């Protein structure tokens, strides 16, 4: 017991990011440039996988650097940090998906990594066929799947659909089947990304319960990445906090989570205070604060795509407004309007407010993609513009499982997500 099973030394990973290309002003210049483009493209594509340790190229971005830690057998290590702190890259290196640019990892034991559930699921194949395909993709042999097949089917709870093509499944059924396979891998070391913590509450609970039993009863080593501080505190004995690709803080979970929350709060207080610099209107009906709450009405610091979000707007008014206009305008990258929340159009019946208080806008599934948004708030009463605050608050939205399929919606595009289904014909 308590042997070191993972040893990471000075790990680093560099990526090339795109640099802005030089543009030519003249027609001749543009023409010559276009002749040179293939050569430039070739150099760019070739450089994608070349990093000299001494090079100082501007387009090299270190996603992870100088990371060293050890994990003992049977330990559950939490990895926390903000979006872009390098958590996913670290997991990808540990699970051999991508090679480190520098440093070394030593692993004793069989590793299974779940960065996504249902990788390689084919919609045309039946549930049974997909169990075998997905199981072998995750490193099992046919014999091992055979042995676990009955348990997997039972755990998934979809026995009667097991010979139906997966494309006829609901998204919830797909996730259940995928997780059932993942839950029966029985590796020495399990690496789990936060993907398991999304989906509906029941599914989350089942996943976390399984992770816990893997860790405590079976004595396996687990690396767990999550934004859910409660889950991290609950499951992990030790945690590391990543910031800008390096370890900022390491220790027992409570200390690390407290440290992270304290720092997150500082950031929050700086960023989340409403900004009323750009304010117009007659001031008879004004906003005094905005809070973001989760489904359970607890204040949150991290928003993600697909979550249930409550936006609490505190206000003050000279009278008791009836049917006022309160509009929230979400702007991506501080400029493009992507979403408008309109109290007058969306509210049934008469909206009667007190002179002072708060009103909550509920979004069942946050449809905006990951990125930075600023919000404008517009309030009107009796046809008069009473308060219009531009960029009242800036929020960062992270990737999430919008469609409830167990897959993180990764596309970074403009616009919003719309719930829909696809049928392969």
């Amino acid at each position, binding site marked *: 017991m308590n042997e070191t099973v993972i040893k990471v030394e000075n790990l680093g990973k560099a990526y090339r990011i795109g640099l802005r290309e030089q543009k030519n002003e003249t027609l001749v210049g543009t023409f010559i440039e276009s002749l040179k483009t293939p050569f430039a493209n070739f150099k760019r594509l070739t450089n994608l996988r070349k990093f000299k340790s001494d090079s100082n190229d501007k387009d090299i971005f270190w996603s992870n650097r100088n990371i060293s830690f050890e994990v003992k057998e049977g330990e559950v290590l939490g990895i926390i940090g903000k979006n872009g702190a390098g958590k996913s890259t670290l997991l990808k290196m540990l699970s*051999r998906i*991508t090679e480190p640019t520098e440093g070394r990892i030593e692993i004793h034991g069989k*590793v299974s990594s779940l960065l996504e559930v249902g990788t*390689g699921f084919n919609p045309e194949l039946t549930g049974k*066929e997909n169990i075998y395909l997905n199981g072998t993709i995750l490193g099992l042999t046919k014999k091992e799947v055979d042995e676990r097949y009955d348990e997997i089917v039972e755990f998934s709870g979809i026995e009667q659909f097991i010979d139906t093509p997966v494309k006829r499944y609901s998204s919830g059924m797909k996730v259940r089947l995928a997780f059932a396979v993942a839950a029966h891998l029985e590796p020495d070391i399990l690496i789990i990304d936060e993907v398991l913590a999304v989906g509906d509450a029941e599914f989350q609970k089942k996943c976390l319960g399984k992770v816990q039993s893997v860790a405590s009863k079976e004595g396996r080593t687990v690396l767990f990445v999550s934004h859910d501080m409660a889950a991290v505190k609950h499951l992990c004995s030790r945690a590391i906090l990543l910031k800008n690709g390096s370890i900022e803080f390491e220790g027992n979970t409570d200390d690390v989570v407290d440290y992270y929350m304290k720092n997150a709060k500082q950031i929050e207080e700086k960023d989340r205070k409403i900004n009323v610099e750009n304010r117009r209107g007659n001031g008879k009906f004004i906003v005094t604060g905005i809070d973001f709450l989760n489904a359970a009405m607890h204040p949150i610091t991290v928003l993600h795509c697909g979550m249930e979000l409550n936006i609490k707007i505190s206000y003050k008014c000279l009278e008791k407004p009836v049917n006022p206009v309160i509009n929230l305008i979400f702007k991506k990258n501080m400029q493009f309007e992507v979403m408008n929340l309109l109290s007058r159009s969306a509210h049934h019946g008469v909206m009667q407010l007190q002179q002072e208080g708060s009103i909550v806008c509920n979004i069942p599934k946050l449809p905006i993609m990951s990125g930075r948004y600023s919000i404008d708030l517009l309030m009107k009463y009796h046809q008069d513009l009473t308060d219009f605050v531009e960029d009242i608050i800036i929020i960062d939205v992270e990737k999430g499982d919008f469609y409830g399929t167990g897959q993180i919606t990764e596309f970074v595009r403009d616009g919003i997500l719309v719930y829909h289904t696809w049928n392969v014909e």
Partner: protein
Amino acid sequence: MHEKPKTIIEANKSKTFFDFKEFWRYKDLLYFMVLRDVTVLYKQTVLGFAWAVINPLFQIVVFSVIFGSLVGVKPDMNNMPYPIFSCLAVIPWNYFSNSLNASGSSLITANSIISKVYFPRIIFPLVPVLSKLVDFSISFLILIGMMIYYKYQPGFNVLYVLLPLILAIVTSAGLGFWFSALSVQYRDFKFALSFMLPLLMYVAPVAFPASTVLNKLGPTAFHIYALYPMVGAIEGMRCCFSVGKEMPFNLLLIGYSSAFVIFFTGLWYFKKTEKYFADIA
């Protein structure tokens, strides 16, 4: 407690040789991915596996009408009728072309898997090379049908049938390694492959007998021509089903030599670039 495997991951030190032991551990995955390709291919079609017959059949008809009747190409396989002569080229050619096409783009198609799970990447280009063998086998029905129709009976060379087939398999796997690895980084190769395949078909002795090259350009040119492994594969296939024609062992030998060079250099390049696939796919 069972013995635990030890893995060391180190920057710039990953293995560049082929790890057969690891590959063997994942043989079941290869099997299920081939099975997936075969099951999924003709799902939700009316004709199903009949497509594996219809597609080459029409090609053979067109070749027979244009080259056999209009142009008047004479098969050099003793008394082999032109439709059988062209069938024996179209079947291996279609196998080669379909498997190389799918193999070359296999990594691009699978990029969502590549960035989420680790397993030997070499499986991706190998899957189509194996799964297209099913189509290949089914299209043999055409050959059997034609042999009955023309009352044509092949000689004992049939026993050599695996020689040209394995040559086609090795060649498409080797080129599949090259093109899949190259097109992950340079998508140009994806386009290059799709426009080169039809050209390669006209170069191969599909419509005409390989001996035309020997007669028109001489033995040196003919041996250089044989470096193109499909020459040996197609001629070999025809001789297998000919009556009394000797197997073209020289063509097969030259073809195999160049196919193995392609295969092993392809494997080397694939292993060399494999570790970057997740980053650049």
